């Protein structure tokens, strides 16, 4: 019997795409535990029922699973072969060495050969290894008699409900612990509290990917509620590992890293130039010179380059925020866009350059004020069939 299983163990991927969505079916081959290990367990502790089923040797479910596994294995092998051939061709076409042709090179080559203006990223041409293209599948998690290993198998979504189960168990344990501490008349240690500001919960898609199960919207909401409840407990730091499994770190503090050292010009003045200051359709560069007297020069003019007051206010916003309005000079070149976009680009450029001239706590203040965030929003396109990006024609019954 063991030889039957040894080839299934190596699959973590299984079955064709179309059969994935069927709920009941998918559960049958959605399990991950190595089947060969389980075989031993079964022969060790035999109950009457199992002796009976042992005569039957192998269940229909297992047989079906094995068939699918084999099919999938062959399919993936073929895909791998095709992918490698394609990669070699691509490398030869681009005049590169096929042996050292990486995925990055493939992406660049595809973008070069098939320039695509298609709006939806999912519809653009791509060439990836089959593992990435075909979603990961679980291996069988039932033994040869067809009995599931997981105690939540019949919920249909074993891993998902296991997470909820664990969370609930953790909540109970923490509450017990809290009672114990209260009985001892102690209070929670403030230094130990859980810090979750720098991360967010997994999105539904990420959670599905980690659990290798499809979940409903309401189930995702339940998941979030349970986890929020767990986090809200005073001793939640004791379950830190469990909680952090399901959190994704946000982008790190880019403003604090890699602050450039200022250069010095012939007058001995420190200066920093920020290129690529973008906002809407405007783009330009900003140079900050220190020490200075608060001169601002925009495309050779002073701040009256902007006719409206609002744009002028925007330009001096970071300067008055940091209190540097009299201590530095600003020189900008800006083009494209309108006054609001240009002012926004200059505002970001000044704030970004000022990082080299301010203290660390001021950096934090600037971050909280949002001055260091690049405003990457662009005008949303107009959609056909409606007057604007979102605006719809007036609804008429007939």
């Amino acid at each position, binding site marked *: 019997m063991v030889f039957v299983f040894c080839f299934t163990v190596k699959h973590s991927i299984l079955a064709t795409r179309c059969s994935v969505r069927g709920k009941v079916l998918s559960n049958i081959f959605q399990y991950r535990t190595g089947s060969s290990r389980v075989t031993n367990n079964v022969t060790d502790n035999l109950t009457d029922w199992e002796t009976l089923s042992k005569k039957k040797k192998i269940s229909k479910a297992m047989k079906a699973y094995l068939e699918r596994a084999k099919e999938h294995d062959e399919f993936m092998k073929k*895909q791998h072969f*095709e*992918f490698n*051939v*394609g*990669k070699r*061709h*691509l490398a*030869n*076409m*681009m*005049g590169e060495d096929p042996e050292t042709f990486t995925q990055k090179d493939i992406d*660049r*080559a595809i973008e*070069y*050969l*098939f*320039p*695509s*203006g298609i*709006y939806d*990223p999912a519809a653009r*041409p*791509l*060439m*990836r290894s*089959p593992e990435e*293209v075909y979603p990961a599948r679980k291996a069988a998690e039932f033994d040869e008699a067809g009995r599931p290993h997981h105690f939540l198998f019949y919920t249909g979504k074993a891993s998902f409900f296991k997470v909820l189960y664990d969370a609930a168990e953790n909540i109970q344990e923490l509450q017990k612990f809290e009672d114990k501490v209260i009985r001892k008349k102690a209070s929670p240690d403030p230094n130990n509290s859980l*810090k979750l*500001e*720098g991360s*967010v919960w997994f999105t539904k898609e990420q959670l599905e990917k980690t659990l290798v199960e499809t979940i409903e919207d309401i189930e995702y909401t339940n998941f979030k509620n349970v986890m929020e409840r767990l986090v809200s407990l005073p001793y939640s730091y004791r379950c830190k590992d469990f909680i952090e499994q399901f959190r994704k770190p*946000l*982008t790190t*503090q880019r403003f604090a890293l890699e602050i450039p050292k200022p250069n010095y010009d012939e007058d001995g003045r420190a200066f920093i130039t920020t290129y690529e200051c973008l906002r809407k359709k405007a783009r330009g560069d900003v140079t900050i010179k220190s020490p200075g007297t608060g001169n601002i020069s925009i495309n050779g003019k002073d701040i009256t380059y902007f006719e*409206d007051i*609002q744009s002028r*206010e*925007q330009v*001096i*916003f970071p300067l008055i*925020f940091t209190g540097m309005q009299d201590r530095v000079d600003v020189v900008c070149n800006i083009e494209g866009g309108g006054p*609001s976009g240009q*002012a926004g680009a200059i505002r970001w450029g000044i704030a970004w350059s000022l990082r080299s001239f301010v203290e660390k706590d001021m*950096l*934090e*203040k600037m*971050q*909280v*004020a*949002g*001055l260091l*965030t*690049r*405003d*990457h*929003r*662009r*005008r*949303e396109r107009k959609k056909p069939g409606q007057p604007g990006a979102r605006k719809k024609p007036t609804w008429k019954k007939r």
Partner: protein
Amino acid sequence: MNSGNWFLIKSLCDLSFRQCRGWRIPPRRLYANATSFPDYFKNPIFRKEQQGKLIESGELSKLAAVPVKPPATYETCSVYHDPLVNKVINHVMEMGKKQLARSLVEKSFENIKRTQIERYHLAPTPEEKNKIELNPKIILHKAVENCKPLLQLSPIKRGGITYQVPGPITEKRSLFLAIKWLLDATNDKDRTVHFPEQFAWELLDAANNTGKVVKRKQDLHRQCEANRAYAHYRWQ
């Protein structure tokens, strides 16, 4: 997806791409950027006094670890920036002409200032002079505060008859109504009178708790009082 994509690539092979060693992708803007920030971006806190509060409570460094939206184009940390004034400017604005709207509001502030200074100099005693408010922004705040209704009438249909049922009003709606009424009263003027003058008068009247707008508010309150017998229709 397409590991079979290479068929297409293969057909391109004849185009002698083989020769181009230093191939690079031409720079271009392919796809539109997002038009809004994701919801985990926090709103910026840029006013000095608000940041001072954060520093006191020690939350600033915590917040600094979180992505923050950039302040909008009309927001600054300047002491001259006032959210209510900005709101009024936006209500005055028509067809997106913000510069014009701003100049109109500023002109009416100027008119308020002139009137008040004149009154100040005409006032005989120092006590009376002290009573006169010279800051137009404070006058605007007072005027809006005086115009805010506390109740509203909402039409509710019961048994084929529409009743005007009094009920509480949200803070936001009452602010909206106050500004709207002020502007309605201002626009109800002779053609020879300009907007800034009329708006200044309305603001001064309302700040003084007199005038058309305050009367309109009191009328509404009176009608709510008269219709209190219908109040139970809100929940029945």
